């Protein structure tokens, strides 16, 4: 009974991937494909697949997507050109030049200066601080003659060689471990081109109209629609912020995934202080658990989970007690991305290898889902937690997984479908615009599903090398009955020269969905999608009723709302 091994699925199928070669371009005729090497599913539901070719053509330069109304995206010449929206959050801009990053190590600038000899001890201390044991050994090996005894130099060079050999061996198993921590965060962050973003992370508060923005200079600002004060959070340990999330069912707590720890800020919403002291932050750290690239609060607000690509275990934090329970699964070599389903029953955990796991949160057991092509880059859950959309690196498609049985029953298995289905094809498609041909498509950087389950925003990576393949946001309409399908809605475009970097939906926009986009020029803009929910106000499956839509927005003007009688 104790040895209830969970990965029998893994045992059965781990050798099979080689039998089913990966198909790079899914052919359009074959709409279903087994992502997973499980049973070839014999589901006869005909699922339709959406592709980019069905999308309306993108607009030329100088046109900015303003909002969606009457099922059409409305554009204008500039972001300020319309005042009709009921959502009056001004778009913010954080110019790249105004922020000075602190994140570069001294070592990177060392070569630019004249050689300056410190004493060996100072250099060693510096090397130890900058790059750990490796740096220290290197410093000793490279030290001039006479500074250190010979045996120390020889010993250091031997141990350095040994270390390198071991790490190269380890690195050949898990290539991501050879990256520097900065690069690792950039690689696994949900933001596109993270290291060059002036806005590094963004998070809406789940219940009120406020959001937190992590900036390039490692500070976090909190903007509230109801007050003018925008507190700035700074902490000595708050470096290279990879993710932010507000605690659900709480007014104050904001979790920050930092370079080598987790910070939980308690920001008093009534305080007028613009600079909360570092005493307001709880520091949660665990040896070996850095850099933290992803965090997720339980929707019930009880626990926080954090993941690091270096650590094979993900941590379940009891924040109040500052204690953690590591959940270790060695396969995959780390955890890069976490996403908690809105009903709180499952957690998606992606690894740097071509494998991801879906945990059920009652007994914390997991299912392994090996992918064929690459690692799982991102994923998002439907509002009722029954469907998971995800994308895999190296493939230009969106997959869907459904989970049918309720995991609440004792002994319940977080089961569901045996294989993932492709729901959207995002391969390159060329459009003719006034500026000439534009090719759109590529791998997915991040996915966002609005809390009503009606719109799906997809951030496509594009290709930085070629100017005619920019990163874009494609928005789909989603429908779950009678069958789940994605319908094209359009592309969201920003100002000229601005690339989207991050997307997130407002958690309780009353008139539809509100997409917040962070652009490469440092602008944060909000794109509302006005629509009436198809199924009316939808209630969850009963496990935890969804949070009611915000009351505070009721007094907005109703003009647009009534137009949408279609």
């Amino acid at each position, binding site marked *: 009974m*104790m040895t*209830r091994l969970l990965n029998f699925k893994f045992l059965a199928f781990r050798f099979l991937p080689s039998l089913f070669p990966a198909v790079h371009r899914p052919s359009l005729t074959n709409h279903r494909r087994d992502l997973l090497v499980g049973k070839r599913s014999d589901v006869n539901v005909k699922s339709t697949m959406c592709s980019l070719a069905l999308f309306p053509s993108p607009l030329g330069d100088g046109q900015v997507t303003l909002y969606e109304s009457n099922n059409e995206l409305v554009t204008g010449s500039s972001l300020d050109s319309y005042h009709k929206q009921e959502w009056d959050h001004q778009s913010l801009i954080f110019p790249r030049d*105004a922020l*000075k990053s*602190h*994140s*570069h*190590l001294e070592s990177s*600038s060392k070569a*630019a*200066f004249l050689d300056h000899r410190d004493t060996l001890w100072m250099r060693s201390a510096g090397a130890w601080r900058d790059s750990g044991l490796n740096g220290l050994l290197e410093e000793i090996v490279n030290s001039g003659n006479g500074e250190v005894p010979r045996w120390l130099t020889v010993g250091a060079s031997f141990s350095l060689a040994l270390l390198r050999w071991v790490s190269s061996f380890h690195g050949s198993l898990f290539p991501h471990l050879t990256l520097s921590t900065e690069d690792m965060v950039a690689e696994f962050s949900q933001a596109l081109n993270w290291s*060059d973003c002036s806005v590094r992370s963004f998070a809406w*508060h789940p*219940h*009120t109209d406020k959001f937190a923005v992590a900036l390039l*200079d490692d500070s976090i600002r909190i*903007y509230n629609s109801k007050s*003018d*004060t*925008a*507190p700035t959070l700074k*902490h*000595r*340990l708050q*470096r290279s912020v990879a993710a932010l999330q507000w605690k659900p*069912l*709480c*007014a104050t707590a904001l979790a920050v995934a930092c370079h*080598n720890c987790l910070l939980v800020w*308690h920001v*008093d919403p009534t305080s*007028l202080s*613009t*600079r909360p*002291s*570092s*005493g307001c932050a709880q*520091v949660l*750290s665990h040896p070996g658990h850095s850099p933290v690239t992803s965090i997720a609060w339980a929707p*019930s*607000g*009880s*626990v926080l989970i954090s993941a690091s690509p270096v650590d094979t275990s993900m941590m*379940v934090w*009891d*924040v109040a*007690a500052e*204690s953690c*329970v590591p959940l270790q699964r060695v396969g995959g070599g780390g955890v890069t991305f976490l996403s908690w389903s809105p009903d709180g*029953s499952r957690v998606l955990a992606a690894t740097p290898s071509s494998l991801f796991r879906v945990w059920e949160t009652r*007994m*914390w*057991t997991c299912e392994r889902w090996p992918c064929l092509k690459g690692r799982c880059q991102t994923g998002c859950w439907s509002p009722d937690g029954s469907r998971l959309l995800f994308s895999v690196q190296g493939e230009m498609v969106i997959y869907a997984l459904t989970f049918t049985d309720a995991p*609440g*029953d*004792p002994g319940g298995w977080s089961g569901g479908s045996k294989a993932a289905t492709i729901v959207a094809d995002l391969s390159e498609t060329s459009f003719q615009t006034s500026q000439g041909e534009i090719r759109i498509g590529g791998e997915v950087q991040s996915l966002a599903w609005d809390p009503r389950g009606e719109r799906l925003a997809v951030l496509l990576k594009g290709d930085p090398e070629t100017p005619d393949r920019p990163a874009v946001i494609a928005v789909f309409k989603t429908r779950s009955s009678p069958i789940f399908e994605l319908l094209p809605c359009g592309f969201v475009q920003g100002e000229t020269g601005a690339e989207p970097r991050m997307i997130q939906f407002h958690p309780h926009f009353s008139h539809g969905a509100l997409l917040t986009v962070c652009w490469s020029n440092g602008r944060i803009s909000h794109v509302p999608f006005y629509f009436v929910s198809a199924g009316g106000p939808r209630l969850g499956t009963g496990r*935890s*009723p969804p949070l*009611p839509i915000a*009351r505070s927005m009721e007094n907005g003007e109703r003009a647009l709302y009534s137009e949408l009688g279609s």
Partner: protein
Amino acid sequence: MSLPGQNHWFIRNVIWWRAAASIAWSVLLLPVTTALFVLFSKVSLLHPIQWISESVSLLYGSYVIFSLLMLTGVLLVVGFFNLQYYTVVASIPCTKIALLGKVLHPQQFVHSLVHCTLGMIVAWCASVMIGGRYNYLAYPCSEDESGAIHQMCLNEHHLFFLLAGAFIGYSYSLLGVVRNMNYISFHTVQQYKYLRFKGALPLVVKYSAVESLYLLRNFCILYFFLGYVPRAWICTTMNLHKDSSVNALDTVTGLLDLSLLYHLWISGAFLLATWYTTMLLFKIYISEMYSFPVQSAFSEEASECLPTVISSKTPLILKFLALQDLSLLSQHSPSRRQEVFSLSQPGGHPHNWSAICKESLSLIHDLTQRLVAYHEAVSSNGRAKSQSSDKEHKSTTSESSAASGLEELAKTPWRLAGAQDPFSPWYGSVQSPHVTRRAPKLWSSSTVTESPLSVTPLASPAIAPTPAPPAQTPGFLSLWLQSRQEQVKNFLAKRVLIMYLFSKLPEASSQALFADSQAHIWALEGLSHLIAASYTEDRFGVVQTTFSSILSSMLTLQEAVDKHFKLPHASSKPGRSSFSMEDTTYKTLRFALRAALKTAIYRITSTFGQHIHAVQMTTEHRKRLQQFMEYKEAARSSLINECFSIGNPGSEASSGERHRARPVTDKPFVRSHILRMDSTVRGQHSWDMRGTVKAPSRHTMERSSTAVKEVPMAGPQLTRRPSKPPLDRTQERGVISLKGLLAAQRFSKGLQERVALKRAAQKGLRAPTLKPVILVKEKIPAGSAQPSEHFPCAHVNLLLQRFLSSRLEGAIYDASCSNQLVQKLSEDLKRLVRAVCPPRYKLVCMLTLGQAESEGAILASRCLWDPHSDTFTSYSYKSPHVFCTAVVFAVYCE
């Protein structure tokens, strides 16, 4: 400690089986551990094959088999003691003397004695298994060179082993009680037992190895000094002789026997590992969730159903497991929730719900009562003390604090600063009507504000709504008695030992108050989830009848908890150690309770939304609830955390540094910045501030508990003596108090906020700006220059942008004329910037122009300057053909 002697069905049917299973597993694991032990004890790296074969052959030997039997017996006894002594509510001693009492308790004495003996048995087994020179207690030896007379000599190694085993066994028991090892905590995360065990096993091994090392050190020291006593005793009782040819072990040379120490360490680690594994398995088994039926069709099983079980008092473990089950079912299991909301078949009463709700409410109510009582005790302390003679006040600060520590153990340390004497001239002067109007509740909530700094006696304890009767002048005899009493107390207080024993451990009383809060947390979680679920699932409206009482009791508790967290020590966190077997969850239960309570209220308000206004409630509660509805509920205690962090010299000087883009340090420092251009990618450049991230990051990991310790040290600079009269000598004793600091901090924070409010009001109806209000000027060291007008970095940056892009638009790199171009540009730039530059700034303009090919370039610069007045700005322009970077340094010159 629960006694299994109670013939409760749950103990009989569940707990015993669980205990038996855990002991069985630990016995099953024993051969593996023993094999490992044998392997390690025989280790010889030079002859690996011989080593392995020897160990394997030994494993089949009769010694090992016999030892295994012995060890099994030992484990059974250890397991039995685990079962006897476990507890789900940690007992927290509030003073050193209470801890001493706990250690010397007869029950604990039995525990220690038995474990001492068991340790000796394990050590004997270990010595037999290792064999060699440790095997027997006595061996034949010859007195003289001829070897003619044979007699028995004492094998001191064997004795050393046995004593070490006894010592480790005793330490296990002692440390167990000091560290509350018998406390069973329940995890927030449910996992299967196997996975939990697997996760915790490395920790057990590591912990026992390290612990064994420490115990070995202690034992060696002990033996070095006192080792001759048992040796002589054994020699005389068993008529053994001492072998003079062998070094005695209580000498330095005798103890420096590395192989002996290694074997001893291995044996100690083996002993601790087996025992801790047994304990770990026991805890895992006991704390496993148990699913109680919500209702049963058979009446004889009714006593085993959740509603009955949850209200039972007797086996505490049963109540805890029932509450855990309640919280889990409310979260995860719709079908069982349905049973909770169901009505009884004949009669249609919601028995299930009302039983569960009643019990949860009574738990919440209990805690509220306890908190209020504690708060009252704390606040009435000042009054109680004021009855005592004023002689005490003439003594020095330390004496009086110790004396009062003696006087009432339940007192809390901050009472001193606020304690007033009714007989002092102070007393009359402060009885302004404004103060006396205050209700006791308000009074207690303002304890923190009070300080030697704020002279207005907002919260003098002497002023209660029912003023203490100072008119009852005590008789001469009683006065005399009182003074004698005080003298005795003062006398005792001067004795260091007594002070040490009776002084309160910080935050222990707060921990003790919340020791069983796990039950309350589950009750809150269960109730809130059930209520949230009732929004959609409760078909009969069962919950509605109790809704308002649940909400109001939660809000009352919230108020009490809020108030409690305003007390000092209540919000200081214990230091966290990631590597320890010790379960410290009981120390942080109050934080968990606070978080769970808030989340519970939020869950209810966010589920019901506006409907909640229909619930009947008092206005005060409605006001409180409104805060929750608007998500405006503030973390009150973060204030105190803030204070601590400021008091802590190690932490970030947060008040000094305000909203500045550039770093603030005390000395001029070397700063460099790098402008890195990479033509292959888009123009990315990034800044590096040298010296800003210098400090080792570990420092900020310090918890506020360390900060608390440091506050008194930092006190003298921070406390000012109030200048205003009336101040007699009695006032002087409380000068350096934590409370004073807190109050000062709070006052200053209040000031900040008020100023900010004023500023906001002044701004009036202007459009919301995103510019933050700068409240506190940064601290500038005395030697630094203070320019009247700072260099306008942002403006100059804008100028740079325009200048470069206008001048270099469409420019094509040409090596021949770029020299002149750069010179011209820099001259122009300097002139341009000079126009906007405030006086006394020297400017350095540096331009770098280059051809944009696919190479990268690093531009870096370093300056030695004053970071408070000097600054720089830079911009780099890029076109397909050229790149140009302009840096303008502005150096203030006095």
